[in-house]
């Protein structure tokens, strides 16, 4: 059960790569690893929290009002996280700006509340939230890493916004002026995400082929678009 939940969140049903939920913040903030990490952690926190609350009240709330109640829970949690970030990670809050309150509109959250948390006990629900959040964060990190590396030639720039003013773990991997501008612009985000989705599909196809072992060689290839 636990393994299956983890696998669903991180890979099989990844919010970013498979469900394609929460694309607006995903594409907008992934100009650097740290931005991605910040938004990913905030989203994870909200996901776990809302899953817990929804699961706790799943037998009390009547079906006809469950959606408004979920919305209310999520909105309160997001506002709480937003205030907390403003208080403790002020610089990061400034960078992420509007995308923190916009976590409310991330369909992945209400989707998990409805599809999983409202039908399961608190513990698995929280774990599901954490895993879904981790899957989302992972996509944010990878996409942020690719875009930051190509666009600015660095990795982990701005870590001081999260880990205190003295932290500077920026890796300068490419020469300064070699930035590939497209990577930082919105089209670069779409292209990057598209490549990630494609890469995941390729890996899945390979795994599938291997599992089917020898007999069905010609079948799996070249069908799905």
């Amino acid at each position: 059960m636990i393994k299956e939940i983890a696998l669903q969140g991180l890979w099989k049903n990844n919010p970013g790569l498979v469900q394609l939920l929460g694309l607006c913040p995903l594409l907008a903030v992934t100009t650097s690893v740290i931005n991605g990490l910040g938004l990913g952690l905030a989203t994870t926190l909200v996901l776990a929290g809302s899953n817990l609350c929804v699961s706790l009240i799943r037998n009390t709330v009547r079906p006809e009002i469950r959606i408004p109640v979920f919305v209310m829970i999520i909105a309160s949690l997001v506002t709480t996280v937003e205030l907390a970030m403003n208080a403790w990670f002020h610089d990061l809050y400034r960078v992420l700006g509007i995308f923190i309150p916009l976590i409310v509109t991330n369909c992945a959250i209400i989707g998990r509340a409805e599809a999983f948390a409202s039908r399961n006990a608190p513990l698995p629900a929280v774990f599901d939230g954490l895993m879904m959040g981790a899957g989302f964060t992972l996509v944010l990190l990878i996409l942020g890493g690719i875009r930051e590396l190509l666009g600015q030639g660095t990795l982990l720039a701005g870590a001081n916004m999260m880990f205190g003013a003295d932290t500077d773990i920026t890796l300068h991997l490419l020469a300064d002026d070699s930035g590939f501008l497209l990577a930082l612009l919105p089209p670069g985000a779409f292209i990057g995400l598209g490549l990630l989705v494609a890469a995941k599909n390729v890996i899945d196809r390979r795994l599938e082929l291997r599992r089917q072992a020898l007999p069905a060689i010609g079948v799996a290839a070249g069908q799905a678009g």
Partner: protein
Amino acid sequence: MATGKAQRPTVRRMTVAASLLTLFAVVGVGLVALTEDSTHERIERNEREYLLRSLNDVLPADRYDNALFEDTITVVDAELLGTTQPVTVYRARNNGIPKAVILTPVAPDGYSGAIRLLVGIDYDGTLTGVRVVAHRETPGLGDAIEAQRSDWILGFDQLNLNQPPLESWAVRRDGGQFDQFTGATVTPRAVVKAVRNSLLYFKRHRDALFANETPSAAGQSEAASPQKNQQESRPDIQAEREND
């Protein structure tokens, strides 16, 4: 045909649902209110620290000894300060003697909208520093006006209206002395113009800007109308009320 039997449970169900909804609303609001209450002091401090940090970027903290936040006025000059909105002016003094101001003008003609600036000007009319506060210029091209991205904006330090002469306050393409960026001329052009205009504004209104002496005097809201230059582009200087 709604029978009484069917209606009762419906009404009851609706009431229960409504009460539940209300209950969750109250709990949600309570949670938010609690968080707000425990964080707002910290948030306020963060905002202040952030503002002070940016102010000290354009005006070193050792140049003044007054509380910049409390010694402010707002002025309006659409032509030179780039916006019809009131613009905040921070006044720096040392032992009560006027030392410098920090203007917060807008460069209205950036490539994608307004660019908000902080411009520190010494009492003698020399720039102590310029920084961009907010902009929406193209990443990788126009955003070189940010101090984190390039040193371009630092080039304004120590300049004034005579050095370089007024006609050289333009980007090279327009015959001036400031570098434009590869692929972006509009952005630096807008910033250079805004900085020059700020200097012009300061030159014309310096005495009026420092007119009301202390923060406590500002509380009396004596509108310090400038004595000079009343014929053209008279700024509407209002003393900002401070409640301290």
